[in-house]
């Protein structure tokens, strides 16, 4: 556990906020796709920690989290002022594998998925494509940051308020066509239904080295409580087992994700 002093905390866009904690120890160890488990200060009668992907880390010890205000905890977090301190556990979880130089990364993200994959994009030696989907324009975040990192950003929204109107996975065929011959490697992070659809596509097309960040309601964050499980393929009679996303994930191989019922 590390005490993380808040250095900045402000609106990023609409309901999305960005907070920076000063925690050099965590920053040093962070790999893309990992998360921190945060005990939000001043939470009244709520005792559990909240998990947030590490969106960025800086050399001078600032760890950035991008979060959407959805409930009690994030509401209180959004009210915290610089100087206030939260307790952070991390970096936790299995990271994404940073692509090799000859690999062309295609990141498929939804919701806060862009925050969870930014560090991956930044550290990728070859810059690729970000396919970012959301319900509507308000939920498309960090596109500028990805563009600045050299990624080709394409967006989709369910309501058509920005970019392609439809599901983000529908943008994949064109990317494949444009980048024929390249060693494409897929990464995904977003809502579970989107990731299951993506896993199916990748499994069908044989992109077995693809990596997906799956998560679920968390409690301990370290593998002890079995709250956070998702179905992962297994050779038992059922064909699947529940794997802990906090410890065995959140990043899983696309080929391991169980896409059946």
């Amino acid at each position, binding site marked *: *556990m590390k005490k993380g002093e808040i250095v900045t905390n402000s609106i990023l866009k609409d309901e999305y906020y960005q907070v920076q904690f000063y925690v050099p120890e965590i920053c040093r160890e962070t790999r893309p796709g990992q998360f921190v488990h945060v005990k939000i200060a001043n939470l009244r009668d709520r*005792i*559990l920690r909240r998990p947030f992907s590490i969106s960025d880390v800086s050399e001078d010890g600032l760890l950035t989290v991008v979060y959407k205000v959805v409930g009690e905890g994030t509401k209180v977090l959004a009210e915290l002022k610089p100087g206030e301190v939260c307790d952070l556990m991390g970096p936790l979880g299995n990271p994404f594998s940073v692509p090799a130089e000859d690999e062309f990364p295609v990141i498929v993200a939804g919701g806060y998925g862009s925050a969870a994959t930014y560090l991956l994009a930044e550290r990728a030696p070859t810059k690729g494509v970000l396919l970012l989907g959301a319900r509507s324009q308000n939920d498309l975040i960090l596109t500028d940051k990805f563009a600045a990192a050299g990624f080709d950003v394409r967006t989709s929204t369910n309501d058509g308020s920005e970019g392609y109107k439809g599901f983000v996975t529908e943008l994949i065929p064109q990317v494949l066509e444009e980048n024929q011959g390249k060693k494409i490697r897929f990464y995904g992070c977003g809502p579970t239904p989107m990731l299951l659809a993506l896993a199916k596509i990748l499994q069908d097309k044989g992109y077995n080295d693809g990596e997906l960040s799956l998560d679920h309601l968390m409690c301990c964050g370290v593998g*002890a409580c079995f709250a956070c499980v998702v179905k992962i393929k297994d050779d038992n009679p059922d064909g699947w087992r529940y794997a802990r996303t906090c410890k065995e994930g959140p990043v899983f191989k696309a080929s391991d994700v169980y896409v059946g019922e």
Partner: protein
Amino acid sequence: MADLTVDLGKFSIKNPVMTASGTFGYGFEYKDYYDLDKLGAVVVKGIAMKPSHGNPTPRVAEVSSGMLNAIGLQGPGVDKFLNGKEYMPFLRTTGATIIVNIWGKTIDEYREVAARLEAEKDGIAALEINISCPNVKEGGVAFGTDLKLAHKVVSEIRKVTSIPLITKLSPNVTCISDFARSVVDAGSDMVSLINTLTGMAIDVETRRPKIANLTGGLSGPAVKPVAVRMVYEVAQAVNVPVIGMGGIMTGLDAVEFLLAGASAVAVGTAIFVDPHAPLKVAEGIDEYLEHHGCKSVSEIIGGMIR
């Protein structure tokens, strides 16, 4: 520093603070946080004969001063527990006092898992019989809320093992002391309580239960007053060591349980807030003892003044 050693009859532990089953995994998950032998005891998550998927998700929901869970006893099964390197073989290397929580869907399953552990009992200080998990459809809480079944489970297990037995009692009953008396009569060397209180929460937006299993077990500070009351009642009713738990977050919370008659305590939900919680609780007990001029923790056990 006061003497924190606690004599539990069949064995002693170096301090009165254990981890509550199901909240500390198999110990392995916390090995990088501190040496497990600093704990009074490590109580592992429930072990059954067979591997088990557990319940569908969502399995947890946060509520005022606590949480609901219906993990449904996901676990590796006893074979893997005895042989898999991150389970018992790992635990044997830690030097910690190890208590294995067990459960079954039938009396036969309870007896079989106990017999398997008896056969390889090296490093196992005690078995904690979970007759009180409210989150498995078959067995589990049925045993914990039926006096005859509770007695039967414990006496069947008693026949196949000489390992000290702790029976973990359900709070979802009218008179918990009756259950304590019954399982002690059946051969339990100790009792532990409370397991979780059955509760429910509904997401008003989706109108669905927040726990896929419909109901879940309530734990955390919200249950502490009920837990302290039940520990007091049980400590009056039986002459075996009582292990108290339910909402302990601090050393002073633990002192309440000790004063009520618990010989040791377990820390559960607090571990999710702070993995170091059990150690901090032990330190807090020590500070209390020093502050009150007590040389040993035994001086305050059952020390409530009426």
